[in-house]
C-alpha cells in the first residue's frame, strides 16, 4: 500500500520542502498573491500535463503538444482577427480540429504499430509547419472577450486572485482524476501501460483506447493553447517551443513511470507546481539567470528517474 504511493509522497515532500525553503528566504511566498500567480502562470502547462499523464500511463508519449498549443494561438488570432469569427465558435472549432488530429495520430499508432514517439514527432513538425502556413507574424488578439476573461477572478483573502484559467486548470485536474481512477477508460489506460499483449488478450479494447488517449491529449493541448492565448493575448508561430518536454518532465517528476502503467494525475499537479515554484524562486532571487530553472528541473528529473528505478527494483526483489 505504502510503496505504491511512495513516488507521489516523495514528490509532495519535495514540493513542501521547496516551498519552505522559498518561504524562509522570501516571506512573501506565504501570500495568496504568489500562490495565485503560481497557479495562473502554470495553468496552460497543467492542462497539457493532464493529457500527457494519460499518454505516458498508457506507455506512449506525445511530442506534438507544444506545436498544438502554438497552432491554437495562431489559429485563434487569424480567424478571430482576420476573419471576424465569433471567439466562442473559434474555440469550439480548434478544440474539434485538435481532437481529430489526436485521433489521427492514435489511429496511426494503433493500426500500423508505429511507435508513438515517431508518429507524434512527425505530428509536431507538421503542426508547427501549419502555424507558419497560417502566418509568420505575431498577431495580437484584441477581441473584447479576452479582456473580460482576464478580469474574471475570485479574490482570495490577502490580495491574491484565483483567475479563470487557474480555475479551468484545477477543474481539468479534477476531471482527470475522476477519468483516470473511476472510469473504465482509466482502467484501460493503466492496462495498456502494464502490458499491451496481456491487455489485448484480456479483452481490453486496445485500439479504441489508444485513439481516445491521443484525442484527449491533443484536445487538452488545444485547451491549454486557449488558456495560453488568454495569457499572451496573441498568436505566434514560435510560441510554446519545448513545452512538450516541460510537460513530460512535470509528469515524471509527479511520479509517473515513463514506461507506463503506474502513476497518478494528482502527482502531475504537484510536478507542475514544483516547476512553477522553481521559476518563481528564480524570479524572486533576481540575480540568477532563468536558465537555472532548466538546470534545476534537469537535476530533479534525473533524481526522480533514478529513484523510480530503485523503487521498481526493490519491489521486484521483495516478491
Amino acid at each position: 500500500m505504502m510503496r505504491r504511493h511512495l513516488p507521489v509522497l516523495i514528490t509532495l515532500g519535495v514540493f513542501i520542502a521547496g516551498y519552505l525553503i522559498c518561504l524562509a528566504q522570501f516571506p512573501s511566498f506565504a501570500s495568496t498573491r504568489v500562490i495565485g500567480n503560481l497557479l495562473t502562470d502554470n495553468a496552460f502547462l497543467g492542462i497539457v500535463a493532464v493529457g500527457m499523464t494519460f499518454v505516458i500511463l498508457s506507455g506512449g508519449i506525445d511530442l506534438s503538444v507544444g506545436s498544438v498549443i502554438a497552432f491554437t494561438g495562431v489559429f485563434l488570432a487569424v480567424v478571430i482577427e482576420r476573419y471576424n469569427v465569433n471567439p466562442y465558435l473559434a474555440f469550439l472549432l480548434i478544440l474539434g480540429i485538435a481532437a481529430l488530429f489526436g485521433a489521427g495520430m492514435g489511429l496511426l499508432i494503433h493500426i500500423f504499430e508505429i511507435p508513438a514517439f515517431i508518429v507524434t514527432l512527425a505530428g509536431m513538425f507538421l503542426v508547427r509547419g501549419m502555424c507558419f502556413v497560417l502566418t509568420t507574424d505575431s498577431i495580437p488578439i484584441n477581441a473584447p472577450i479576452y479582456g473580460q476573461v482576464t478580469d474574471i477572478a475570485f479574490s482570495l483573502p490577502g490580495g491574491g486572485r484565483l483567475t479563470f484559467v487557474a480555475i479551468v486548470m484545477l477543474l481539468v485536474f479534477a476531471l482527470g482524476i475522476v477519468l483516470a481512477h473511476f472510469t473504465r477508460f482509466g482502467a484501460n489506460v493503466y492496462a495498456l501501460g502494464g502490458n499491451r499483449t496481456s491487455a489485448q488478450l484480456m479483452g481490453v479494447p486496445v485500439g479504441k483506447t489508444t485513439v481516445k488517449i491521443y484525442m484527449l491529449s491533443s484536445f487538452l493541448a488545444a485547451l491549454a493553447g486557449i488558456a495560453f492565448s488568454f495569457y499572451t493575448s496573441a498568436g505566434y508561430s514560435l510560441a510554446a517551443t519545448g513545452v512538450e518536454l516541460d510537460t513530460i518532465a512535470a509528469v515524471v517528476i509527479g511520479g509517473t513511470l515513463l514506461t507506463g502503467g503506474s502513476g497518478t494525475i494528482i502527482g502531475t499537479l504537484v510536478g507542475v507546481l514544483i516547476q512553477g515554484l522553481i521559476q518563481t524562486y528564480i524570479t524572486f532571487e533576481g540575480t540568477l539567470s532563468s536558465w537555472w530553472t532548466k538546470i534545476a528541473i534537469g537535476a530533479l528529473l534525473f533524481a526522480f528517474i533514478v529513484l523510480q528505478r530503485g523503487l521498481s527494483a526493490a519491489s521486484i526483489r521483495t516478491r
Partner: protein
Amino acid sequence: MQSLNVQPDLLEISSLTKGFPGVQALDHVHFMLRAGEIHGLLGENGAGKSTMIKVLTGVYRRDAGSIRLDGQEIEARDTAHALSLGIGTVYQEVNLLPNLSVAENLFIGRQPHRFGLVRTGEMRRRSAELLSTYGLDINVTEPLGSFSVAVQQIVAIARAVDLSAKVLILDEPTASLDANEVETLFRILNDLKTRGIGIVFVTHFLDQVYAVCDRITVLRNGRLVGSRPTAELPRIELVSMMLGRELAAEALHRNQRPAVTGDPLVAFKDYGKRRLVEPFDLAVRPGEVVGLAGLLGSGRTETAKLIFGIERAETGQAYVDGKPVRIASARDASRLRFGFTPEDRKTEGIVAELSVRENIILALQAQRGWLHQLTRRRQDEIANRFIRLLDIRTPDAEKPIGLLSGGNQQKALLARWLATEPRFLILDEPTRGIDVGAHAEIIRLIERLCEDGLALLVISSELEEIASYSDRVVVLRERRHVRELSGEDVNADTIMTTIAGHQ
C-alpha cells in the same frame, strides 16, 4: 434448456488450418466439445495446442476451416468478441496485468458502474467473494504483481471461469499450483461441468488429465492424432499417441546407483535469512542430485535464491571446495560457476525479440564479458547442440524465441544455463510446462550431467519425479528444512508424509 444426457456438440471445429512462416501449426484439425464435458487437449511442445486456442478466440486469423458454436458459424474478431460469445480463456503466457489491482484484473472491461463511474466498492466486494470460492483471502486492492505466481494464476483462472458462459479454455493453468489448489480448481471445474459448460483443458500433467477429463484429443505436429474417451485410453497408449513412438517404461526412472561419496562441492552451514528461510545446513557433492521438496511457499525457491545470492544471507557461511566464499549477489554466484534456472521463466527469462541462438548464448556471453565475443561459428555450434540435445522444436536457431511454443521456450532457457557449463546448477521446476517426451529427455540429461561431475539442486512439486532422480531429498515446511531423506527413504510416499508433517 438442454438435457445433459443428450450432450449436444457445443463447439465444433473442422478442418482448421493455420500456418506460420516455416511451420504448419495446424493442419486440418477437427475438434469437438460437448456441453458439460471436460476435454483434455494434449500433445508435445509445439504440437499446436495454443495455436488452436488462439485461432478459436480470435487472436490469430485462420487460413481455412470452420468453427461452430451451438451450431452457428463463428469467427471471433478479437478476444473481447470471443468473450462476448461466451468463450473465456486463460492463455498459456498470461500473466494478467501486474500493475492493476486484483479487483481490476478480475473485472476489467466489465466493471460494475453507475453514471459512467466504476463502483469501486461493489467491485471489491464481488472480487473478494469470487476469490473466496477458491479459498483465497487476499486484499483485492493490492496490485496483482505483489502476489506470488500461484495466486496470480488463480486470479487468472477465477477471471476466465467467471467470464465463460459456454466454453472455458485453460491452457496449462496448473503449472504453478500446489496440490490443494489443483484440487480446488478441479472441484470448480466439475461444478461448471454440471452447469453444462464445456471445458478445454491443456496440460502436460497426465495425472491431472486422468483425474478430470472425460475425453482426450491428441495433436501432433499440427495434425489431429485422435480423440477418445479417457476411460478407453490407457496411459501408455496416450503417450505413444502424443510422441508417435513408444516411450520406454523406465525412461522416467533413474537407474539405481550407489550413493555418491566424497567431499562436497558446495556446502552451506547455518545459512539463513530472517523471514525468508530459517538457517539450514546443506551440502552437495559432485555428481549428486539433491532434491528440494515441499509445498508452495515452504521456502524451496527462497532457499535457491539465497544460495544463488539473489537474496543475501544474514547468517552462516558458504563453502566451495571446502574453502569459505562470499555470495552476496547473483554475479558472485555465477563467478563461482553456479547456475540457476528460475521458476517463473515466463516473465524472468526470455528476451522475446532475440533469436533462439541469442537467447541460448546470453548467459555464457555475459559471463565472458562483452569484450570477449563468442565467434558466430561457436554460437551456432552451441545453439545447435542444445536444440538437438533438448529437442527444441524450431525451424532454425534464428527464429525469434517469442514465436516458439511455450514449452520450447522453457527448454531454450534451460539450455542457456547449461551452456555456461556450471559446476553447480540449481533447477527450479525444470520440467514445468514440458511434455512427457522432453520430460524424460530432461531427466536423462540431469543424469548425464551428474555423471560428468555436476552438482545439482532440483526443486520440484512432482514427487514421483523428484524421487526418481534425487540421491537425497530435503523436505521443507513453513520455511524450515525439516528433514533430509536419503537411500531407501527417497520415495514419493515418504516425501509426501514428511511434507504433511505426520512422521
